[in-house]
């Protein structure tokens, strides 16, 4: 019975997706409610998608070239964000003076979307790899710091007392008790940071760049090619999902035997 109803709902889900595409097809290709410069039909989008793997026009790069360009910038900024953000968050939670002094500054900085730094960085570093990588770094830093901080802060005092009773030094308490406790939170931060890094690279490329998926969709807006825009958006979404999936695997490998809330 339970299995039967599961199947029923799966079928409904499939029908929903198929229905959506059918309505899209009906409105665009058959009824011609929209034109090619507002919303192209699914067939056209699929055709563009296949074509874009080899075709460099209209924006000077194939899909894979743009993809690689975006990934390279996003992942380098993201890696820097993790390398600096996680230890900073741990330090802030562990040493009270650091907490009291760094937190107010940080609280203000985190209210600024990472993207808002992009124009300033472009003036200082020029339009290129560095200014974008630093923007991504700033965007990825905040979630890493916040989650590492929250993770270390929630260490149970009882565990600390036990460690101290058994003669652990402060250093041992940090590395053997606090950081392992914080690990699920740290991984959550790393996962959240990935989302904001990926979002920021797309946005930074929309504003100023000469390659990348964001650049591609922005160029195609100027020349009224929504088919390429939709291909680009779906590709951005797809890569985002793949990256999240990879982080999920790492997360499950690192955080063993703990259930964490998303």
């Amino acid at each position, binding site marked *: 019975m339970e299995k039967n109803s599961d199947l029923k709902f799966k079928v409904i889900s499939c029908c929903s997706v198929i229905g959506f595409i059918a309505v899209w097809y009906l409105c665009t290709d058959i009824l011609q409610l929209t034109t090619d410069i507002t919303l192209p039909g699914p067939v056209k989008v699929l055709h563009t998608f296949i074509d874009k793997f080899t075709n460099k026009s209209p924006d000077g790069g194939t899909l894979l070239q743009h993809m690689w360009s975006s990934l390279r910038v996003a992942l380098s900024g993201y890696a820097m964000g993790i390398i600096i953000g996680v230890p900073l968050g741990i330090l802030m939670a562990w040493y009270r003076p650091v907490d009291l*002094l760094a*937190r*107010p500054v940080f609280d203000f900085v985190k209210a600024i979307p990472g993207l808002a730094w992009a124009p*300033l960085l472009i003036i200082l570093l020029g339009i290129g790899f560095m200014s974008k990588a630093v923007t991504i770094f700033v965007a990825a830093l905040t979630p890493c710091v916040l989650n590492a901080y929250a993770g270390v802060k929630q260490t149970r005092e009882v565990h600390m007392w036990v460690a101290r009773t058994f003669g652990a030094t402060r250093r041992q308490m940090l590395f053997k008790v606090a950081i392992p406790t914080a690990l699920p939170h740290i991984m959550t931060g790393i996962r959240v940071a990935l989302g904001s890094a990926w979002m920021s690279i797309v946005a930074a490329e929309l504003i100023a760049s000469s390659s990348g998926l964001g650049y591609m969709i922005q160029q195609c807006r100027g020349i009224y090619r929504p088919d390429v825009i939709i291909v680009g958006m779906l590709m951005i979404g797809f890569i985002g999902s793949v990256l999240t999936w990879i982080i999920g695997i790492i997360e499950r490998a690192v955080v063993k035997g703990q259930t964490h809330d998303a």
Partner: protein
Amino acid sequence: MMRKILKNEWTVKIGSAVIALAAFCMLWQAVTVFTGMGDFLPGPAETFAEFFRRFVKPYGKAVLPMHMWSSLRRILIGYTVASAVAIVLGIVMGTYRIADAIVMPLFNIIRPIPPVAWIPLAILWFGIGDASKYFLVFLATFLSVLQNAYAGARSADPVLVGAARMLGANDGFIFRTITLPCAVPYIFSGLQNGLTAAWGQVVASEMIRSSAGVGWIIIRGMDNNDILQELVGILTIGIIGFILAASMRGVEAKLCRWTTRGK
């Protein structure tokens, strides 16, 4: 006794915040005065003075408060409408499996696409005016609130729901007394995330195409190579973002005093 300690705790926190911000500004000032960076990087004194001067001296066509208002209007309208729609839809999806089965797969296709990636398409569809900004803010808010409202409605304990139903409660009663109280803390964390996302989205969409607003200020500063304008813009964005997040936390603390999440 307890109150006294708490008070002292607050004094320490606020005192150190003031010291930290002052130290940060002094460091910044020192860098601009004593090193070569001062040639192109304005100091904090200059930035704050410029910030207040811009209340009367316009950027482009409007003074700073008018730019703030342009951005705030965009976020408030889009955010309010999107929150209302997303909360209702999320709860319906969390309660009725058929709605879940229909909407969820479509939502899963859209969800991984960052809201900023919709900007070019939104401009093609709605033009460069306010309509496209409302749409973009709506989208950013909707995605994050819907996920949370859905998770919240799903978090209702099925045993409780079953027990209530067995004792003769109807759907409306179950909704009011079980589902909704379970969902509210989740909804609030969704509203909080949604507000952050919406603010980022407003700034991003103004940076890409607009004629007023705080995002416009920083992008125009970039075009003119005007670092002072950049810093004033970033400061403004930070202040508004800070106030928005703080007021949302205030509302949550007031309304959800009974939950542990609402702290």
